């Protein structure tokens, strides 16, 4: 889990909270030095802080949610793996491109006794790690590794659990040369062929095709402050508004939040985060995730292979909004 006692990284809208927290500890220190009883005052301030935290995190704008989703301390795939599995062994390589993509990790795990295949995008924990992991932007080799591991799960009858957390697929020259489009496309089609449960969760940032490449499943869960988008608001603003500064408006217009996507029928379930976001209490967040995975797996593992495939097909078949003109 991200280490929470290091210097906190503050988002703009968290500043009033931090100021209040600082004032509380200041008063406490002063009171101790001067031996004054300030319990009532502290109590008042603390309840004010709790209230403020709830207010702020209860009414985040889409652009603010995006900041929470991209928070450098936000728990990542491997953080959750560590927190929720009893047993884990990472598997590497797609057996074809000649290297292992660290931006998309996967492996065998045990979830409350049940063997599962876990896959997910992996952002770095610091600058050095981010460079190794290409900021969570997977290459064709990553998507092909994911497919290889999903085939493995299919062969051995294991449910597949995927964690989505990427700003998009790697747009580099090497990725193009190795067929980034083909690698994602292949996964989209083949995930409809698999006969084991597939459970996808957006844990942070769901960036376009790079997210969808491991996002075709029987259920799509989203954390409360995670986002899923067809294009980043920055890019969208630059293109449609011709002004990157309009990113907050684009974030609003694109409907990227879990609530929006639930309303559009694209997401099945929203997982609540602690007040203050996943990074404020990673262990509690992980517990929420684990319970949701277990609940959904309990249902999905009761279904026949045919049922799973048919319902997965119908789930996506329904997506889209259009009208029929008269005549």
């Amino acid at each position, binding site marked *: 889990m991200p280490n929470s006692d290091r210097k906190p990284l503050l988002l703009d809208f968290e500043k009033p909270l931090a100021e209040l927290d600082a004032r509380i500890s200041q008063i406490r220190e002063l009171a101790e030095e001067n031996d004054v009883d300030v319990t009532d005052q502290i109590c008042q301030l603390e309840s004010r802080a709790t209230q403020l935290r709830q207010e702020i995190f209860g009414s985040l704008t889409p652009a603010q949610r995006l900041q929470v989703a991209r928070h450098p301390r936000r728990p990542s795939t491997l953080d959750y793996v560590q927190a929720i599995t009893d047993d884990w062994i990472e598997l590497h390589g797609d057996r074809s491109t000649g290297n292992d993509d660290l931006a998309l990790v996967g492996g065998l795990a045990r979830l409350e006794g049940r063997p599962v295949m876990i896959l997910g995008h992996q952002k770095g924990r610091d600058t050095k790690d981010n460079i190794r992991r290409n900021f969570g*932007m997977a290459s064709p080799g990553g998507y092909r590794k994911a497919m290889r591991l999903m085939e493995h799960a299919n062969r051995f009858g294991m449910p597949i659990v995927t964690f989505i957390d990427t700003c998009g697929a790697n747009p*580099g*020259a090497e990725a193009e040369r190795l067929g980034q489009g083909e690698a994602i496309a292949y996964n*989209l089609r083949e995930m409809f062929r698999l006969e084991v449960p597939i459970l996808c969760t957006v844990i942070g940032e769901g960036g376009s095709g790079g997210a969808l*490449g491991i996002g075709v499943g029987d259920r799509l869960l989203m954390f409360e402050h995670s986002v899923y988008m067809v*294009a980043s608001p920055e890019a969208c603003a630059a293109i449609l508004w011709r002004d990157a500064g309009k990113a907050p408006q684009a974030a609003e217009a694109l409907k990227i939040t879990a609530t929006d996507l639930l309303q559009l029928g*694209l997401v099945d379930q929203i997982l609540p985060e602690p007040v203050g976001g996943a990074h404020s209490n990673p262990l509690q967040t992980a517990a929420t995730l684990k319970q949701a995975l277990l609940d959904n797996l309990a249902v999905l593992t009761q279904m026949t292979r045919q049922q799973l495939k048919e319902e997965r*097909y119908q789930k996506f078949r329904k997506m889209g*909004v259009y*009208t029929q003109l008269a005549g």
Partner: protein
Amino acid sequence: MSLFDWFANRRKSNSQVTEPQEREIADGLWTKCPSCGVLTYTKDLQSNQMVCLDCGHHLRIYADERVQQLIDPGSWLPLDENLAPTDPLGFRDRKAYHDRIRETQDKTGLIDAVQTGLGKLDGLPIGLGVMDFRFMGGSMGSVVGEKLTRMIERSTRERLPVVIVCASGGARMQEGMLSLMQMAKISAALERHRATHLLYMPVLTHPTTGGVTASFAMLGDVILAEPKATIGFAGRRVVEQTLREKLPDDFQTSEYLLNHGFVDAIVPRTQLKKTLAQLIRLHQPYAPTPLTTHAHGVYGGSTTSSVNGFTHVLEQTEHLPDGLPLRLSAEES
């Protein structure tokens, strides 16, 4: 985030910038080739399927022209012609999506960016989808997704090979995540088509990028491309940002993809119908005796079905429903 932003930026601006460049005077008496600049009598150009007689440049063509070029006269049955876009997100940038749709419809006479239907290609019944770059850069929203999915599903039911002519800047941002999900929806329909051993051949034309490349454009059993088309996932400008060195001149062209193993063949437009017919025939069962003889009685069902006035010969002998090889039925007869 800047890489991804640039990528998306490029992807879209690509479509918006190149759109007005070509065919500005297409309906004039003379047409100027955007590649070599030579003026050609438009009728001559049209009779050469809008391929420049001088330099061989493939000018952009509209979906209806493509249908005419590929489908035998009188055999075209358009599907879902009245399926129209709505504005599910209430999206507004500098202009409301709602207005943008209406303006584009008025300007182009199209309802959205794809035409689908059934028809005969050199006598061979197929399901066909043709994207039209004129309509918001061929971007893929709910209507494109739904029309292609319905056409593929119908082709699966009627056991027809599918051809999709791609031309798209990618997903339609104004429909948000609904657009992205069309990639999965179409891929799902292609999976079922494939599972019944039917042939799917995308034809990649200029440009085929973004979400279309990352879904049905790259899922062909055989993938064809027009010469010198731009084909890629990320836009060239964002790719350039990730590198210090210069990209090869042919980067993200049909020729580049052929050399890197992602396209089966580059086919000039004037050879496309012939090549598609050749490929479809090569996937028909080897039948020294007439097809209907050994098909009869083996599967019971009728071998023809009438679709709005023209008859599709259902290629029931081509593949058994459960995927058994044809040989079994031949032995039986």
